[in-house]
């Protein structure tokens, strides 16, 4: 239940406050989110989608989600990005 929080607590102030992280889930899968420091976004591994955080406001609108690259989801999986050209 507090997986998101656990992942965020190591990160400290800049990202998302704990009270928020505690209750946030992916709007599509309703599964926990993971904060990705590299991209500054919230990642839903269950849905394979990442959501941006803009000015400290997580943007969890389904249509604003970006499909993760295959290698981000599973590094061992061979990439087959046929349907997401662009």
């Amino acid at each position, binding site marked *: 239940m507090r997986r998101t929080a656990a992942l965020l607590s190591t990160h400290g102030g800049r990202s998302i406050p704990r009270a*928020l992280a505690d*209750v946030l889930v992916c709007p599509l899968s309703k599964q926990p989110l993971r904060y990705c420091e590299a991209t500054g976004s919230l990642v839903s591994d269950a849905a394979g989608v990442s959501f941006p955080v803009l000015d400290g406001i997580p943007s969890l609108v389904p249509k604003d989600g970006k499909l993760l690259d295959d290698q981000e989801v599973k590094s061992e999986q061979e990439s087959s990005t046929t349907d997401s050209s662009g």
Partner: protein
Amino acid sequence: MAMQAARRLASWSLQRRLLLPSQVQAPSIPTAAAAAAFLHSHATSFGYKQVREEDKSKLVGNVFSSVASSYDLMNDLMSVGLHRLWKDRLISKLNPFPGMKHLDVAGGTGDVAFRVLERIKSVGHRAMQGTLTETEEDTHIYVCDINPNMLNVGKKRAAERGYSKEHCLSWVQGDAEALSFEDGSMDGYTIAFGIRNVTHIEKALSEAYRVLKRGGRFLCLELSHVDVPVFKEIYDVYSFSVIPTIGELVAGDRQSYQYLVESIRRFPNQEKFAQMIQEAGFQRVEYENLVGGVVAIHSGLKL
């Protein structure tokens, strides 16, 4: 003095209806599905225009991006300040308490959230004589809005009011139809002047039900249907002539306010909307008309 008159007007023709304790206690799926199918078509309304479902959210988005900065001023002008009293009424029905987790949807400018917070503080302080208790520190209000411009206005106002230090307010951009909050995480859910703009009302209602804890309260403040004969005619003239004109003069945007008045007329009436709330699973559904039905507050409990 003006406030007193306004208060009297706001409670004028105040009606209260308790709906039958739902004929379908645990809403049977076929009924709910049939109702949903009935309400559902692939064309949806944008004011009086029929638009494709995919387009509605975009069109509504344009409206709110366009009016975000003058939104609260416009509300004051259009409702002659009454929206403040209506929101106060909403909060007193919510009955906020210290330690509460509350979600306000479509409340980007913070208007409802700040009121909830103020009420909790006054309750807490009365009980604890000014000392900040641990329970009060647990208080958290989540503001969710689909429009980033509205959230930015709210965040700025929170900073101006000195709320940003207290860490009890969170701002999330999200869709009422697909909330990003955990099941059973909220004590209260409010949506003020927001549900009318949602493409699928029944989805928003079922999401509200999902995020609430057992015992949690759903409250919706929305412009509704006037059924008082002469007053209805006056209200129609006001809506269709005066409001778009104010919109043009103040917000520089006639069309957005034309949409506003049309969307009010398209929204299900009080009884119908109450029925939809029941179909989402809520119990003890009731509503209160304010100013003869210009606005209604619907309420339901997740038991």
